[in-house]
């Protein structure tokens, strides 16, 4: 049996294919927007995954370390390490700042990791080049998104760091690439002021008669030394022993150490539900509107495509073609158009997604939903077109 739809497409294939490609680009944009939304949520999740922690111990009554600032003394880990059920702990600092390299600077989240061996919470879980940090100072592992290369010298505050390793998909919840440096250096970067500020502070202290007493030599030095300590970190990451309930361990740290502790699910709730909630809703809103607009445009295109063939349909009716055949012609064409559109859209989205500055996550499930939605919209739109086609008067084939 000769397919009427196929014949018709062959007849005007250029118009058909190019309409399909145009439609596809629109679908591609919609898929990409879904990817941007998924990417945002994924950024928050990989941050938690990459930290390798089961529990986050932060300053009491804060939502730290990602959503709020939190600072706790850097020797608190010892007490937490001795709590039952705790397998590994490590101090960590996070500071989002501009990292300089030569002439340019890159926005990055500088993460201070506790010295030790790979596999400790907070360390980059896998690398794509180079090696992990082995020296206790002045080495860095950077995300490839920073654009740094192995062997680069980068400047964080007053110190130069040597890039020894590269990672991928290590980002903060706002999508900034991470740069891992040893904890001591990171503490300095976060809490030590610049030289000018330190000098000013010394001068201010020296001018204070309470600290600069003629009868007590050495007091001023002691006061200044105590002012330039930086024994703080942002959080303590905890991994728990297998078989222990994280809620129970968290509760005992909360109770006996009087600190705030978040479990993985609570942290996800904070990041996804609070930190990126507004921007995610913003993108989500845009996605909804884009989807509606795309659906409308698909419907219009199919409708106008059918109306463009109204004379041919009238001829078909005139020669006694059955309504079912005409309906099948229109619906097959609509579905084929949707199919081409989806394929083009998926290809386009996949190819331009990596070019985006922030992560675009194209989930297969989203693609499947997108495909179903496209086909359903095409079918619905073709129903309207079929209704218009069937109402046409066969006389138009001769008269009109």
């Amino acid at each position, binding site marked *: 049996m000769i397919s009427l739809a196929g014949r018709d497409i062959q007849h005007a294939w250029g118009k058909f294919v190019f309409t399909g490609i145009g439609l596809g680009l629109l679908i591609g944009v919609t898929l990409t927007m879904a990817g941007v939304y998924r990417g945002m949520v994924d950024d928050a999740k990989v941050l938690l995954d990459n930290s390798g922690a089961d529990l986050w111990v932060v300053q009491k009554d804060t939502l730290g370390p990602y959503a709020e600032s939190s600072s706790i003394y850097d020797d608190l880990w010892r007490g937490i390490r001795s709590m039952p059920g705790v397998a590994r702990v490590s101090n960590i600092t996070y500071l989002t700042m501009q990292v300089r390299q030569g002439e340019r600077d890159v926005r990055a989240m500088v993460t201070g990791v506790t010295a030790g061996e790979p596999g400790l919470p907070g360390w980059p879980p896998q690398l794509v080049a180079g090696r992990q940090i082995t020296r206790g100072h002045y080495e860095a592992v950077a995300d490839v998104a920073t654009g740094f290369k192995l062997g680069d010298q980068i400047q964080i505050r007053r110190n130069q760091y040597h890039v020894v390793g590269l990672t991928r998909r290590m980002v903060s919840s706002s999508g900034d690439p991470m740069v891992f440096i040893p904890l001591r250096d990171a503490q300095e970067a976060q809490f030590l002021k610049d030289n000018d500020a330190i000098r000013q502070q010394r001068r201010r202290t020296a001018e204070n008669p309470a600290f600069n007493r003629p*009868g007590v030599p050495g007091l001023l030095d002691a006061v200044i030394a105590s002012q330039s300590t930086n024994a703080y970190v942002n959080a303590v990451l905890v991994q728990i022993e297998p078989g222990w309930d994280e809620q129970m361990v968290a509760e005992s740290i909360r109770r006996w150490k009087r600190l705030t502790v978040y479990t993985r699910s609570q942290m996800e709730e904070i990041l996804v539900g609070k930190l990126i909630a507004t921007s995610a809703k913003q993108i989500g809103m845009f996605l909804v509107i884009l989807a509606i607009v795309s659906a409308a445009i698909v419907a219009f295109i199919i409708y106008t495509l059918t109306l463009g063939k109204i004379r041919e349909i009238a001829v078909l009716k005139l020669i006694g073609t059955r309504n079912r055949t005409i309906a099948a012609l229109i619906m097959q064409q609509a579905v084929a158009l949707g199919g081409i559109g989806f394929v083009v859209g998926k290809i386009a989205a996949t190819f331009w997604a990596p070019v985006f500055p922030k992560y675009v996550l194209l989930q297969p499930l989203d693609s499947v939903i997108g495909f179903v939605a496209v086909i359903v919209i095409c079918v619905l739109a073709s129903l309207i077109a079929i209704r218009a086609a069937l109402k046409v008067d066969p006389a138009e084939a001769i008269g009109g």
Partner: protein
Amino acid sequence: MFHIQGRTLALLAVLLPLIGLFIYVALSSGPLAPVPVTMVAVQNRVVSPALFGIGTVEARYSYKIGPTVAGRVKHLDVQVGDYVKAGQLLGEMEPVDLEARLLAQEAALKRAQAQLREAEERQVYASSQAIRYEKLLAAHTVSEELVATKQHELLLAAAALSGASEELVRLTAEREALRAQRDNLQLVAPADGLVVLRSADPGTTVVAGQAVVELIDTQSLWVNVRFNQTHAHGLAAGLPAEIVLRSHAGQRYAGQVLRVEPMADEVTEETLAKINFVQLPAVLPPLGELAEVTVTLPALPAAPVIPNAAIQRIEGRLGVWQVIDDDLHFTPVKLGAAGLDGQVQVREGLNAGDRVVVYSGKALSSKSRINPVERLPGIKS
């Protein structure tokens, strides 16, 4: 007919590449795509572990010179940067009233000497009186009571004499003390050295014990280094070290671990050690300059070695992704010594020749499909 076939061909020419591209896209991205990985064979190699720490340049011997009593600086003849010899006069404190007090002490001393002479005379006289009256008593010309009185007077005179002589000793000692104080007003270098601090200028009042001048022994410069405790295993006196001063980033100075401090810093969780320069730099580095120190530990016998980038922790166990017959297996390992170049010894779990995953495009699981590559896509060297 040919006409229609041409159209069909054109349509297929557009649609087929599109479908091909779609299949390629579906397979090369998303969960179906194999993860690109780089692999390395475990090698038997010698690891030269090394420790890395930072410290500051300090002087082993430093001398803080100041007065032992409160006073005012009279003159100070040295400036920061001057080299001084042992015994050299550096400056002097104002004596204020010390000369006058010394004069008064001299006068008091003379008076005490006069009093001593007087007591001696009294004692001599009392002694002769006592003897005379004893003789008279023997002749029964005086009463016994009178003799007792004279003997009593003799005892008193002797006591007064001893008192006067002790007083003289006291005053002499006091004069010596004042002289010593006057001599101590001189600020004298106790050893050869370099003046690094001049904290008071002439006319300044300083309290007892406050340093006016600080000297260091330039031959005794060392680096006070702090090593993170987790990385301080094997640190011992006598090990060779390499010192890089911050002001001479390219230049490496040879050094040696002089001692590891028995007291660690419990607040910063660091182990302290002193590193000597084998030969001091021609231009002395300023005290307090930051120095990076790498201590080389003795090389260990050859053992299976993996790059530290291969190490992963999965479900609380440290291990590596081992590739056996193109399948991924997570092999738990026990690690040994590590070099600063990122090579780690494996004590248990792997043998030489085993292939392990070093870099992967994303997190692996035992179900991941892998695509071994020479270098991960998108990585510039």
